[in-house]
């Protein structure tokens, strides 16, 4: 059963077209991430689903039957987590959490707020003002406030962008767990590929005003439909046509052969592709190298070797890649 279905969605602001012909769906209990650079229209899709934008084309259907176009009230099952959390500074933690529970009696409201304070580990902060909380605690209050009225759909707009990297990793897993436990359909918007790959059941990539690929993280990673997606999802090296020919890989005019950096092995073991080291950067556990092809001096690639790699300026260095790791994608 679908929580959200979007069909031929398009939106323009004035004369500027932001998105066109975007279609995808989110099943119940599924987390879908919309990934794309800033300004690609990711948040606009979320805002349209939440009825914060109205001038869109196409169809947005919630819970199989409720069409946003026809029924403005069908967004009552939606919870929205804002990038800046949108917590009200004049209210304390418990008042923020209970803010939307206006339909409950005061006893029921109190019980629900207590339950959420406990669930989100916020009991000791219940009477604090928002500015007294850390970024992570503020985010937990924001999620608790949204979960409080039992939405079936959760929309998350760059929810981890204000957290430091350690807290971000921790919160990501915790949030995934909450969404799965409650069986919500969630759409998350981010420009962080690592975040998208680790939390999502499916990823949609927005580029050139449309959804260019939609699928599981593994599908997208293994079979990117074009060079943009391949580069967006991971570090890749582009192989020059002379090398692909040498390796017997057929590449059409509008195609590019790529290999992931992690699958671009370099060693002193002789192969058909000789490289020259351009720059070495020490990164702690490993070295990151910038190299160019001896035969194609304008083509640079990136490679990673262990911190104990034995560099020897006297010897020639070679690229070792297996043919099955070479991907041919549309340019």
């Amino acid at each position, binding site marked *: 059963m679908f929580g959200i279905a979007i069909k031929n969605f398009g939106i323009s602001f004035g004369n500027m077209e932001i998105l066109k012909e975007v279609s995808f769906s989110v099943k119940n209990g599924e987390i879908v991430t919309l990934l794309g650079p800033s300004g690609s229209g990711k948040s606009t899709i979320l805002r349209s689903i*939440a*009825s914060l934008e109205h001038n869109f084309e196409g169809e947005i259907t919630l819970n199989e039957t409720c069409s946003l176009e026809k029924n403005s009230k069908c967004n009552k099952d939606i*919870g*929205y987590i*804002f990038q800046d959390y*949108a917590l009200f500074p*004049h209210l304390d933690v418990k008042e923020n959490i209970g*803010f*939307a529970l206006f339909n409950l009696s005061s006893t029921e409201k109190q019980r629900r707020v207590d339950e959420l304070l406990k669930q989100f580990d916020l009991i000791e902060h219940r009477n604090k003002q928002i500015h007294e909380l850390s970024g992570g605690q503020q985010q937990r209050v924001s999620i608790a406030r949204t979960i409080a*009225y039992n939405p079936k759909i959760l929309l998350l707009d760059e929810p981890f962008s204000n957290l430091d990297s350690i807290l971000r990793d921790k919160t990501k897993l915790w949030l995934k767990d909450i969404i799965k436990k409650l069986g919500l359909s969630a759409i998350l918007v981010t420009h962080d590929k690592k975040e998208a790959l680790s939390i999502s059941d499916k990823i949609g990539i927005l580029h050139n005003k449309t959804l260019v690929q939609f699928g599981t993280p593994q599908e997208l990673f293994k079979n990117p439909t074009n060079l943009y997606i391949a580069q967006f999802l991971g570090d890749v090296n582009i192989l020059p046509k002379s090398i692909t020919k040498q390796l017997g890989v057929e590449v059409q005019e509008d195609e590019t052969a790529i290999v992931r950096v992690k699958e671009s092995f370099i060693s002193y073991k002789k192969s058909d592709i000789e490289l020259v080291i351009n720059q070495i950067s020490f990164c702690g556990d490993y070295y990151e190298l910038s190299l160019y092809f001896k035969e194609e001096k304008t083509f640079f690639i990136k490679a990673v070797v262990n911190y104990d790699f034995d560099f020897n300026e006297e010897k020639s260095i070679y690229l070792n890649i297996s043919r099955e790791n070479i991907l041919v994608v549309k340019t």
Partner: protein
Amino acid sequence: MIILSHIFLGSSENWEHLKETVLFDYVFNSLYIMVGVAFLTSIIGFSTAYVTTIFSFTFSNFFHYALILPFAIPTYIVAYIYGGMFDITGTVTTFVLNLLDKNLSEVVFFDIMSIEGAIVVMSLVLYPYVYLISKTYLKAESASIIDASKTLGLTQWQIFYKVIIPISRPAIVAGVILAVMEAVSDFGVMDYYGVATFVTGIFRTWFGMGSIEDAARLASILMIFIFLLIFIEKLQRSNKKYKSSGKDFKPIAKIELKGLKNVLAFLLCFTPFFLGFLLPFTQMSYWFVLSYKEVIDEDFIQILIQTVLIASFSAFLITALAFIFVYNVRLSKNKSSDMLTQIVKLGYSIPGAVIAVGILSFFALLDHYIFNFFNLNILISGSIIALIFGYSVRFLAISLNYYESGFSKIPSSYDDACKTMNISQSKTLRKVILPLIKNSLLASFIIVFIEVIKELPLTMVLRPFNYDTLAILSHEYVNQSQIVQSSVPAMFIVGLGVVSVLILARNMIKD
């Protein structure tokens, strides 16, 4: 628009007479005042801002606030007091002449009741515009620039004239333009000192020659002057290239001054504080003590109540109107609503006298054509409605500015969050917006309240017959050469202003 339309009117006999006799004086004097006030306020305002921001010296923390105090006394009241002290029969002049045992003809005498006197008095009261804007700018921008200049080997003096003055130019100009706009719009000072400017000319043409059309024509020329200043200010702001991000903010490590430098810095700040506030305030207090028993009677209490009532009602109405304007712009995100707000904001830059002429012309048209046509026995001109309408046109901008600044601190995600939680518009307003905007609301009310109490020319023209306010009473005493008695209503104006500001400050600190 009504005022501006008069510039295209055909010539009249009165207008020809004005052109031949006084129009040149109006233009020359207005320009002279603009240049003089610009020169003095920029020197006083910027030097005190620089010294109190960069250096630490005796009473420097006190001067930080004390230098703003001249704002508390309306310019016309300072002018009356200075006139009473320094004109040919003034208290100080008489005292000095007695002390020296000389006649006026035997000494060098600076006549305060002159255009130069008006420039000095206006500058002493209006320099805080430059002081405040320059200080805010220097505090935010100068720390890292000063550090960088020091590492480049510049001396403190070189840093001042090679770096600080050039980077502060936009702030100085912004402050100076505000001061100049206020000076050129003034009626009270110029009328009392007998200086012929556009504003006094508007009154003379109207009341003396009985020609509202020609008064409006003068007002239209003044408006062009003002719009030119606004245009220069906007141009200046758009050309402001020296801007750093807030992230670079670094507090200034103040340099401690000792010895002669400490004394000089103290004197530099004490002089404008003394002349702009302490001296007139002390003299006013002395005169108040001398005359309050004579002045405060039932009629005075009636005028006091009247003033407070009209100021409260106007402040309430303007605050409510401005809230509707700004909240509507926020909700609708509509460019035309925003443009309307920006046009309404121009009202504050238009002199009270010009607004008064415009409103009277407008209501006269309304009374004559609309109400007469429908046989309605209503006369708005010269009624409380016209007066409150005038205050609204003039002071709505203040209120709008407070709200805009307040609303800019409330992210639109708060409204969006309420929408996604299915909270109604009215509940969002009650539970989220009003609690967060309440400081701006209070600030708007209090500032408009003070401005209405202080306003002189607009009240003089638009008030109903026999309807007096404290400002009018003070002006009338001065016109009857009863300077000492004028200090009583003046003291109440200043007192109400100070009390209101204290309430505002206490509330802001508490929050």
